[in-house]
């Protein structure tokens, strides 16, 4: 299973593409793509969003669903860090003063 991710153009943050074509920072609503055709189609939509300057660098991430009703979890270690943020402690301590 795959989901589509990218970085939002204006603030660079990691976003996931949901079935209704929105991009969200929350992985819960990411569209779950069962096969290659679905991935290709979703990537086409994502590339259109690149052209309309909403996101940059979209790509498909392989995920698993650990249990029914749970959020998708990326198979690769790198992608898990990208979803959850740095693992180093204080880096997450405080949000930017100027939020989106």
């Amino acid at each position: 299973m795959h989901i589509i991710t990218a970085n939002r153009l204006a603030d660079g943050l990691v976003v996931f593409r949901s079935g209704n074509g929105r991009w969200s920072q929350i992985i819960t609503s990411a569209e779950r793509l069962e096969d290659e055709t679905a991935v290709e189609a979703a990537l086409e939509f994502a590339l259109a969003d690149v052209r309309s300057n909403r996101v940059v660098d979209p790509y498909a991430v392989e995920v698993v669903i650990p249990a029914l009703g749970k959020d998708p979890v990326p198979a690769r270690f790198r992608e898990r860090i990208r979803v959850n943020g740095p693992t180093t402690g204080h880096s997450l301590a405080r949000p930017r003063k100027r939020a989106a």
Partner: protein
Amino acid sequence: MYRYDEFDQAFVAERVTQFRDQVARRLAGELNEEQFKPLRLQNGVYLQLHAYMLRVAIPYGTLSAHQMRKLAHIARTYDKGYGHFTTRQNIQFNWPRLDDVPAILEELAEVEMHAIQTSGNCIRNVTADHFAGVAADEAADPRPYAEILRQWSSLHPEFLFLPRKFKIAVTGAAHDRAAIQFHDIGYEVKRNEAGELGFAVYIGGGQGRTPMVAKKIRDFLPEEDLLAYSEAILRVYNLHGRRDNKYKARIKILVFETGADVLKEEIEAEFTKIRASALRLPADEIRRIEAYFAPPAYAIALPGEAALAAARQADPGFDRWVASNVTGHRAAGHSIVTISLKPIGAPPGDATADQMDAVADIAARYSHDEIRVSHEQNLVLPHVATADLRSVFDALVTAGLATANAGLITDIIACPGLDYCALATARSIPVAQRISERFAETARQADIGDVKIKISGCINACGHHHAGHIGILGLEKKGEEVYQITLGGSGDETASIGDIVGRGFASDDIVDAVETIVDTYLERREGADESFLAAYRRLGATPFKKALYGAA
């Protein structure tokens, strides 16, 4: 301290205006990502794993208190309240919004800072010994030369599109704290027998996937020829450097493939042609730039040694800090203070906005307003009166910046690694954090002495692992983080590249492996005077391999 002349100021202001316009056009969709990416990189903006990252240049690692306060302000206002000091004497902000970057650059320009030449295939920010101008052992302050090189390279049209990025480092002392032999060009300022100033010239050093120690191609280059010779090197490189393969494009590969002798001949021939040109540096111009770096007016004959000895005796914590973090100064009654950005268990090189403000205040009060950033990811107060050391220590304790470990095993260098970097194959900061915790105990650290651990999160080697006494390279194998250890690397005047000791270690085992190596050193050293590096060079890899992998 050097200040922008008017030309620089106008140039930086123009670049900010230009970039503001480019960002606006990008957000409005008038520029696409392909068109915009090179523009943002030219202004130090990368897209990393989680967000944009802005890299700000700190030329030769020198900052005023005023500039440090501005960095704190930026961290607080536009980022998550901290910044990361890098192994290139720069600072990186990990979470800026793209649409805020023009405002950040404008604020930086107010304090004569910018992000130009922190990216791309140009001559990058010139680095220098972080003890420049105050080290007791130097022939001359290397920063005026770094500044001359910076001015020459900043706007040089011929060298904006080199085959690859190009790094220059300058040291003023025979004991190399700037790792010049790991740079594309390394200059060591020295005096010849006649007492004249000049440079030993090294070329072709570098790390990355093909690490090379630089080759010395000149033992003495007269001071006035600095730019002509640099230009000759760059021209020969620009002509022959490989543009067909990114991994073979650095000058180190050219030196390796062509041979230093052949290349030297070509450089010398080019140099002879251009030596008498406008590139020759008039002595009065050098002295004019030098004046910007003139030492502050130190108070003369300050007392302090006796009081310091008493204070050290009274407080073991203070004593330990002085022993590791205070270095002799060229001016009597003064000391150089290293502020460790390696608290036990914390990410190396990170400082919060409040800590940056605290350092600025301390520098304003006790260090003639000046701060340095070291490539070892620490800060330095270069001009502290020895009589003030206790007050400085107390202020640092309050700010959480008084860790007594400069040069010790917990003073670890680590690149951002997979926690931030889009290119990473494994994490490096958490490994540093765990090693730091393992060796936290102060008496043990003092006993182990000078061990440099350097960690990179991928083959690009931003964490300088090749030059670590113990180097750690994070890789990915079958979806897991694996760490490869190298031993015996060194970035000083006895530069060497570490030897790969054997197969890599899983994340759970890497800290134990480091401990095994350290224990082996402690068992086999000839005495507390024999450093880790000296012991490794005497013993070779065998006892360490045996300890790590058994007798096989």
